[in-house]
């Protein structure tokens, strides 16, 4: 449902895999629950050309290099392994270093 006008007449659109960092932080302390990944970790908002901001983890990056406006691309990566040994996958963004699109690893 559209939270602006409550219309159910919605259309799915394909979003760009690339965008720019709107804001970010490097978390130095383990979150209170659920998150099982490494600490410190970087997360923040990526603004896509369609005008949507996605909150995301950042990967494949040097924390000190992250900057507002930096071009980043989406990748699918392991988030953690659950208790039954399943690999839980998630979207993340990494700095653009080549002209290839996001890859599934």
């Amino acid at each position, binding site marked *: 449902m559209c*939270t*602006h006008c409550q219309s159910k007449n919605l259309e799915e659109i394909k979003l760009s895999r690339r965008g720019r960092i*709107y*804001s*970010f*932080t*490097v*978390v*130095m*302390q383990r*979150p*209170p*629950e*659920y*998150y099982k*990944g490494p600490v410190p*970790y970087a*997360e*923040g*908002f990526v603004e896509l050309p369609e*005008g*949507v*901001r*996605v*909150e*995301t*983890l950042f990967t494949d990056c040097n*924390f000190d290099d992250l900057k*507002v406006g930096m071009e980043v691309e989406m990748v699918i990566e392991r*988030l*953690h392994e659950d208790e039954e040994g399943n690999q*839980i996958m*998630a979207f993340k963004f990494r700095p653009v270093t080549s002209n290839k699109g996001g890859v599934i690893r």
Partner: protein
Amino acid sequence: MSRLREVAIAGVGLTRFDIYDGEKGHASKEGYELGMEAVLNALQEADMEWKHIQAAFCGTVYQNTGSGHQAIDQIGMTGIPIVNVENACSSGASVFRLAYQSIATELYDIVLAFGYEKMPRGFIKSTAWPIWQRYMGFNVQPANYAKGAIRYMEETGSTEEDFARVTVKNRKNGALNPYARFQKEVTMEEVLSSRMVAKPMRLLHCCPLADGGAAIILCSKDKLKSIGQMVTVAASILNSGVYGSETGGTGTTYGGGSVRIHEDLVELSAKQAWEMSGYGPEDMDVVEAYDTMAPGELWDIEKLGFCKKGEAPRLLREGALDINGRLPVNTDSGLMSRGHPLGATASAQIVEIYKQLRSEADLRQVPGDPKIGLAHSMGAGPNSAITILKR
């Protein structure tokens, strides 16, 4: 609004905000005991007896079922309605507003609004984030402010030193506040060398947790025991999320949001508060801004309309926000020394404005006979609450 009758504050009560775990020289108290203590203090100051209270609203976040009942059970169950409110960090302002409304509309004459909390330790756990966001590690409150701070720095040119200066000012005020958890000043160097929690937020940019209670008794003017120094409610506003603000705790910070924000929640509250009170920012003599994290105070006073965007760091540097400045902000330290018992915090902000307007703030009293003051709180949800009091 012309059909609402005027509502006065009869009395206020606080506990010392502290850690009540019985360890390292701290007293051991249950949360409901802190609530009870605050209520009894407010009754005494109002020169009223418990039997005069016609309804009670209690704000808590982590105290389980019947939080108000737990506290009031220790004072006396008199058959009055007790309503418990959880509205995250704005709980204490939300109960104030309910009490205000029930008197302004002449449903009751004397109503109790209070909040208390005995806090869990460590990072604040919150169900305000969807579970997938918690798995992704987005549920760290200092990190939300950190993202807001990075954005604020980018847009205004403000610096980590500006944020540290908020802590230094508020901890200095806290040293004059016997109810604060910390009553010790800190230096710029101490703030800027404290442990990094979520870049660029350091430990001393974060308010400390605390346990505590705060109570306010509101009444119609004819029920006041004394009309000397009478303080009345000029506005009581609460807004919850607007389109464009994120779900969850992240909606409480600066410039975030999954889509571009159409109307900022704090700016919306301010607009309504000025409309309801008939005042403007230039009329405020003392302000409690929301400083759960140091930079929050800066963008808060900008969004409330006290200065233009990006100007708050300069006002702070020039001393305008000091107790003897032209816009004293967080005279009791705000959350920064007082600490943050979630359910009690927003009530305690209102208590400080009340004390300032009655010249009862002792060493931290704003000079020049302040007559009008404003308290603003935020909360996960998001929520934004403004209370304006006048004498």
